[in-house]
């Protein structure tokens, strides 16, 4: 499903060149639940950003469903992200000016859908994460766990085949973290491919396999 072939990512400033990822070869197949682990600054989020087409590799090839992503234009990448990928962030990244249901609708704004269809899909996604009663609240009126559930609803509302979660429980206590993991496992059991960056070995144990990074290199 996602194939990274000899992928490297370098960040350059005027004087310094930093290697964030070095010659990564990784394949994530359909229906897998994969965790990425490693110490801070080892390149986990960079790897996830490359898989999510939010960033381009300095060298190497990224393939999604057999199609090479490198060099695709802004609009084409935006469409692939919209149709194929859902994101869950550690910081939730909800738009504070929008209500819960309006936040969840965001990915559908970039599809050809009627207002009614969009609202129906958003409410169904919120129901899926157990937040039907909070649809018209604003993010600041919710707990951290509830905010992350809204973020999951937003990630799944467009029924993407792949979910990329960057430390989805990083800002939550362990009980809320478990609740979020339960939801992710539920989505995985329904066929969604999930790649998750985590620091938490307990969560990594609940995944099919773990990719370990150290200093930008894949060590396992």
């Amino acid at each position, binding site marked *: 499903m996602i194939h990274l072939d000899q992928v490297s990512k370098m960040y350059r400033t005027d004087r310094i060149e930093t290697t964030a990822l070095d010659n990564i070869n990784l394949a994530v197949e359909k229906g897998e639940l994969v965790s990425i682990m490693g110490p801070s600054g080892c390149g986990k989020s960079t790897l996830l*950003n490359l898989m*999510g087409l*939010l*960033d381009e590799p300095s060298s190497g090839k990224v393939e999604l469903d057999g199609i090479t992503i490198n060099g695709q234009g*802004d*609009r084409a990448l*935006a*469409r692939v*992200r*919209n*149709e194929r990928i*859902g*994101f869950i*962030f550690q*910081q939730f*990244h*909800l*738009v504070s*000016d*929008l209500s819960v249901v*309006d936040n969840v*609708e*965001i*990915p559908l*704004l*970039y*599809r050809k859908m009627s*207002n009614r269809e969009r609202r129906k899909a958003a409410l169904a996604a919120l129901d899926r994460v157990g937040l039907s009663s909070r649809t018209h609240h604003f993010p600041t009126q919710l707990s951290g766990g509830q905010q992350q559930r809204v973020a999951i609803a*937003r990630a799944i509302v*467009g029924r993407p085949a792949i979910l990329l979660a960057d430390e989805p429980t990083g800002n939550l206590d362990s009980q809320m973290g478990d609740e979020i993991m339960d939801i992710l496992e539920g989505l995985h059991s329904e066929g969604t491919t999930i790649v998750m960056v985590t620091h938490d070995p307990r969560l990594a144990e609940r995944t099919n396999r773990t990719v370990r990074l150290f200093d930008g290199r894949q060590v396992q």
Partner: protein
Amino acid sequence: MFKNYLKVALKVLARRKFFTFISLFGISITLLVLLVTAAVFDHALAPHSPETRSDRTLGIYQLTMRGPNNTQNSDPGYGFLDRYVRPLSKLPGVERFSIVSAPQTAVSYVGGKKIESQLRRADGEFWRILEAEFLEGSPFTSEDESGARFVAVINETTRDRFFEGRPAMGRTIEVDGQRFRVVGVVRDVPALRFSSSADMWVPISTTKSRHYKEEWLDQFHGLILARDRADLPAIKSEFQASLREAERHLPDPKRYQTLTASADTLFEAYVRRFTPGNTDVIYPGRVKALLFLLMLLFMLLPTLNLVNINLSRILDRASEIGVRKAFGASSRTLVGQFVVENLVLTLLGALAGLVLAAVVLSALNSSGFLPYARLALNYRVFFYGLIMALFFGILSGVYPAWRMSKLHPVQALRGRSV
């Protein structure tokens, strides 16, 4: 999608109240000035009662006679207009032709009190070119003019001053030692309409002396009503041919050999009036371009201010931009969103500007600064305002929107603007 944009736009405006106030203040004051200016221009130039056909009316307001050592420049005389311009009324594109004097101050005494009025002498056709709003009676006719009947049409203010607002029909007024029977009362004609405005109008033939019939230079104007706006160029050209014919019959050919005059639209007449020096050749197109440029320059400062404010908001909204990009918004879509948001801001500012302009115009009307002015926010001025607001909104929104849309999604999600 638009509803979502609108929600975000209003929330963002509410969130940063001070910046919103500064932006709205700048936009509304700018549009206030532009709307008041547009209303004055509209009032002076657009077709309004009684000059509802001004868009297809030409006026001859000036005549210059030149010789090697002499130049005379004045309003045309009745003799010249009657002999060399009236024949143009036979042209297929001409509907009517009228001769009317420039307004002159006339004195009356009512109950021992001196009243000064602006008096015009006109023919019967004058009232058929205009569409005056009669509050009482009707206009005098060509028969009144040919019969030298002492009849008058007065305006509303004159009725108030002579008859304290009571009906004036059939009553007599004495002006400059002549007595006229009032046959009609019209609504006040704004002073800016310089081919028709006056306090009273009487037939030309009631002029005390008959010398006016021979004059080439005097204080009359010729008005030509075309059947269609498309006929105006042909009429202008025929008018120039008439001038060349008139040159062969100049009253004092030893002193004067050439004639210069123009059949002008209202705008051209204003340009000629306000052009310093030699007005034989005027450039209305350049004046329009200059006015447009001045409008742009006037809008430049608040536009730059708004651009700055918008750019400073990039950091605030970086996370949102990152999220939208991650979930499928292309740069183009985001430009659209931010331009819409900016348009919401400018349209709100325009609305405030519109309300302020209505207050200022009402104050101007009642101040008497422009006699008989009825400055108003009609649909044309509203349309200008809307166009200006949209232009302003797009101009100040596109660059910041483009900058916002170019944010790298990863950097944006980290809350960085660069």
